[in-house]
């Protein structure tokens, strides 16, 4: 079983890819067959992923690779490979499972769309690329799939192609993430040049194994930071986070799948995958295991960068999320904020905690987004929470599942998956020896998260039923079923993720699981619980009687406007970077037309005037001289020819004159 799945790991991304190609080439655009194919592909991929997961459970620290030669160039070979280890396995299961239910949801949500089948083709393509990122055993293969994921995201954000705002958002997403990818690409090139391979693990010769890592020396820091640039772009970290909220222009299932559960987490996954590279940059012993960062002292420069980027992102976006009105945008900023939290966790050494939060987040954020999709659908495509309200009566299933997702996100303890993993992150942060500030700021983030989620809940589901909520209705079973399933998973995961029996933590970090209640009650836990309660309580007090004017806006109008306008970061980028680049483009065009081409034309004009000069030399000096000589000769000739008149008298008189002259000459001489 284990051997079979390792050698057939390639099937996991290929099956959805085939489904996508089949849909594109065979099915009609409106047909249901497309959805059926896509869902079948996803079920198959899920089955295979579960098999892979099962086989990794058998041995602690399981790792199997399957490498192959892709290209022989010169006298060297470029090998790619696939990898199965606990990190891959849990990601596979999460991605295929969440995708499956989002696909099911989409059948209902996209039912009226005229490009129904194409939507499923793109979704399947995305799933294939994302699974490729996860199973790659080569930084190059990971990068290839990474870019394809970006393409899928581009296609799906801009899926409603007639909407100019969707097209602009798609472009913005692709280009912003590509800025980060340039760094990633350079880091990849650098790593390739230094270690001679891009395989992660290759029986001791891989780039993430001791020998290669130690050969990196001082360049490890730079390489790690460059690769981190890619993660910053993809995972929407500050300062490249601006694309993610705009990406909500895409259909809601896309937001749930790509811009919440899976793709945006790829950056976190990437950092976890190349973690040994980050660790070795601090001069620590890389060890043999990527996730086992036991040797750790808090002074690793690239990890410090990761922590601070994560903290800034988490706080900024939580604050902005507090002042948004679009139901999806609030969730988008929440996603950015949670991704920041995961980065903090990785940075302070809590890799397993970060990945566990990634998994839990995948479930509850997908649930929340699908819930928001159900709300939007029920409210006839209205997304402004000011126009909703009181939906809890008309949309009971959506309400209950949404509440579960909200509690998981806010960190309400015991029965909700997100709570435990958030505790773990806070705990790991509190232990970071380099600085206490990330810990305090993370706690502020916890309060803010509870606060903005309470605000959203109250605006959408409680209070008076405002304009768009008047004719709201509960969604079809095909849309509520995935909500229920995901909500059950969120609750069920809280058992799996409980710190009493930290098997997943141990599984991810390759240690033996210890059962014990020791971690259940700790000062850190109590502090963060108190803060969650504070956040929700504050939310209820502040927003309990909220009207269409936000209480915050009434009390601090300037602050609220600052946050509502997303700290004017988009405008700042527009005026600085974008305007600069556009100016550079115009300048290049101008220089081309007038300077460089001007030089060429100047040279041409010079040649032309030289030609003119020689022409006039020719005409006036050389040519004219010859003409004068010729006409002189001609005049000479004419003069003499006139003398040949043929008249005898003239000749005779001339002879007489000549004779007379000769006689006179003779007389004078003698």
């Amino acid at each position, binding site marked *: 079983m284990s051997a079979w799945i390792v050698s057939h790991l390639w099937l996991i991304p290929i099956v959805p890819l085939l489904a996508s190609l089949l849909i594109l080439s065979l099915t009609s655009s409106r047909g249901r067959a497309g959805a059926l194919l896509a869902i079948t592909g996803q079920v198959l991929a899920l089955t295979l992923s579960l098999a892979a997961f099962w086989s990794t459970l058998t041995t602690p620290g399981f790792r199997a690779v399957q490498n192959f030669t892709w290209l022989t*160039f010169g006298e060297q070979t470029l090998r790619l490979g696939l990898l199965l280890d606990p990190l891959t396995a849990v990601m596979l299961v999460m991605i295929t499972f969440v995708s499956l239910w989002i696909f099911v949801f989409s059948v209902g949500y996209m039912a009226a769309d005229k490009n129904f089948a194409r939507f499923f083709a793109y979704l399947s393509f995305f799933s294939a690329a994302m699974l490729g990122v996860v199973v790659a055993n080569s930084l190059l293969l990971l990068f290839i799939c990474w870019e394809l994921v970006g393409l899928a995201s581009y296609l799906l954000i801009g899926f409603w192609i007639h909407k100019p705002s969707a097209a602009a958002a798609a472009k913005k997403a692709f*280009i912003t993430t590509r800025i980060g990818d340039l760094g990633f*690409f350079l880091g990849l090139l650098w790593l390739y040049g230094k270690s001679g391979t891009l395989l992660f693990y290759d029986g001791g010769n891989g780039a993430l194994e001791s020998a290669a890592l130690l050969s990196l020396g001082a360049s490890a820091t730079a390489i790690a930071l460059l690769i981190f640039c890619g993660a910053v772009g993809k995972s929407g970290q500050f300062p490249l986070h601006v694309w993610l909220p705009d990406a909500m222009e895409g259909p809601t299932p896309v937001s749930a799948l790509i811009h919440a559960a899976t793709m945006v987490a790829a950056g976190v996954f990437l950092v976890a995958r190349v973690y040994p590279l980050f660790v070795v940059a601090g001069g620590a012993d890389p060890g043999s295991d990527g996730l086992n960062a036991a040797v750790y002292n808090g002074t690793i420069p690239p990890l410090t960068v990761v922590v601070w980027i994560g903290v800034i992102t988490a706080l900024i976006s939580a604050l902005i999320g507090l002042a948004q009105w679009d139901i999806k945008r609030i969730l988008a900023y929440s996603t950015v904020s949670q991704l920041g939290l995961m980065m903090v966790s990785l940075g302070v050494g809590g890799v397993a905690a970060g990945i566990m939060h990634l998994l839990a987040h995948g479930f509850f954020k997908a649930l929340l987004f699908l819930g928001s999709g159900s709300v939007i659908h029920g409210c006839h495509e209205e997304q402004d929470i000011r126009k909703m309200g009181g939906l809890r009566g008309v949309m009971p299933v959506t309400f209950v599942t949404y509440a579960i997702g909200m509690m998981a996100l806010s960190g309400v303890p015991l029965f909700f998956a997100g709570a435990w993993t958030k505790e773990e992150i806070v705990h790991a942060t509190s232990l970071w020896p380099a600085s206490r500030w990330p810990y305090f700021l993370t706690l502020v983030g916890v309060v803010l998260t509870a606060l903005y989620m309470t605000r959203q809940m109250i605006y959408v589901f409680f209070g008076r039923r405002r304009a768009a909520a008047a004719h709201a209705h509960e969604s079809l079973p095909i849309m509520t079923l995935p909500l229920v399933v995901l909500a059950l998973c969120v609750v069920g995961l809280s058992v799996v993720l409980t710190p009493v029996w930290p098997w997943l933590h141990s599984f991810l970090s390759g240690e033996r699981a210890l059962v014990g209640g020791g971690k259940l009650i700790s000062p850190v836990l109590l502090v963060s619980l108190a803060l969650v309660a504070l956040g929700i309580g504050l939310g209820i007090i502040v927003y309990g009687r909220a009207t269409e004017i936000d209480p915050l806006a009434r009390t601090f109008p300037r602050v609220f406007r600052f946050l509502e306008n997303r700290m004017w970061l988009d405008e700042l980028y527009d005026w600085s970077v974008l305007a600069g680049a556009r100016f550079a483009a*115009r300048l290049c065009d101008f220089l*081309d037309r007038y300077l460089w081409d001007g030089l060429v034309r100047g040279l041409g004009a010079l040649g032309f005037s030289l030609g003119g000069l020689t022409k006039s030399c020719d005409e006036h000096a050389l040519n004219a001289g010859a003409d004068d000589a010729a006409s002189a000769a001609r005049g000479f000739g004419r003069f003499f020819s006139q003398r040949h008149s043929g008249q005898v008298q003239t000749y005779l008189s001339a002879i007489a004159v000549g004779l007379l002259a000769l006689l006179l000459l003779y007389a004078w001489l003698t």
Partner: protein
Amino acid sequence: MAHLIAGLIFLPILGALFVSVMPPPYARAVALGCNLLTAACALMLWHGFDPAVAGLQMVSYHEWIPAIGAKLLVGIDGLSLLLVLLTSLVFPFALLAQRMERGFCALMLLMQAALYGTFTAQNFILWFLFYEMSLVPTFLLIKIWGGKNRDRAATKFFLYTFLGSVAMLLAFLGIYLVRGTFDFTALASLGKAGLLSGDVRWLAFAGIFLGLAVKVPLFPFHTWLPDAYEAAPTGVAMVMTGALSKMGVYGFIRLLLPLFPNEIKILGPWLLGLAVCSIVFSSLAAWAQSDLKRMVAYLSINHLGYCMLGLFAVTATRAVPPNEAQAALGGVFLQIFNHGLTAAALFYFVGLLEQRRGARSLGDFGGLMQRMPLLCGWMSVAMFSSLGLPGLNGFVGEFLIFKGSFALAAGFTAVAVLGLLITAIVFLRALQGLFSGPLAEGCATLPDLRLSEKWVVVPVTLLMFALGLVPQFAFTIFNSTVVQMARLLG
């Protein structure tokens, strides 16, 4: 097998004669038939080619004018074969792109013959003959069948490239007077020790450099290109970017780099700087264009800039590790082919849009995806290939070029990757303007891809995918040559 090369060169010439006497309606069919024959020749050449051998193969040699060292010397190595195959691919593609009169077809065939000659000749005089022979048909094609500003563009193109050629010819005459040979192989073996001595070597270098830099073109000798491509009819623009522009890069690889290794090392940073300027400035200029043809033309300069970056990184650096040189050169070779394919496809699509709409400015289009999803879909593939999306052909070549040149010239390469970003911006801007948003005025009745067009588009696109996913089959053609050249140039 050697007669295959002669066949390649003479078949299009015969075809051109034949086209001239045929009734006009059959001209394009005859030209395509002739291309079928040359394609068969090229494939047989490929079949008979031994990829394990590094040097020249199928050499055919006759004395021609012994007094001036002119020989009828042709032969192919991996690079020549690659370019012959590319030419055999681009020409039928271009012939299918538009309606053509009799003279148009005949001139296209003449140009094709000149290209085959350029890519197989191994003696300078013969090479130069073909090199110049390609100019006249191109000039006439632009001048007679071109668009707006065709006279100006054609004259500029001709004079500019001809000036470069004259400089190159003079330089080679100088070299001949000192060294007494015009054979590429013989000259290349003299290069390491210094082909010429004293200051005259710089004169010779400058002459050849100018000729080739104009042809490629390399910044700042590129200004003829946007005008020429803009004015040229679709089919001509396709062969100009697909095959003709490769003559410059080929010339660099065959002539300049092996002949002046020491001089290039001295000028190294300057040359790398020019390549980086080509990459960054031309992609920025492409961003500022609204004429689609002009935009693709600038991106063509940008893509050839990657080739030049790889070549200069290998030759301009001291102490080149062989594996990095192989990576960069392999990438350059592949990029030559990829660019030929992709850029020709882009011009083809722009041509389709222009035929339908009667205009080709970005502002003339909008929302096309609603009317012609197939055309938009396939055109997007070409665009994504050009911006270097993994899985398509453009990525593999660029990745290898950057891999090699990053190890050899990290600073220059780090700036050059900006080109990847700007190219993406340019294409996404075009995609947004053309395909999305509300349907623009005048686009409501445009037809989608026709069956005949699908037969052209699909094979070309499949080739892009094949080269992107399993590039090994292309590498096999030129890998031995790469190894040999890495040793020679590195």
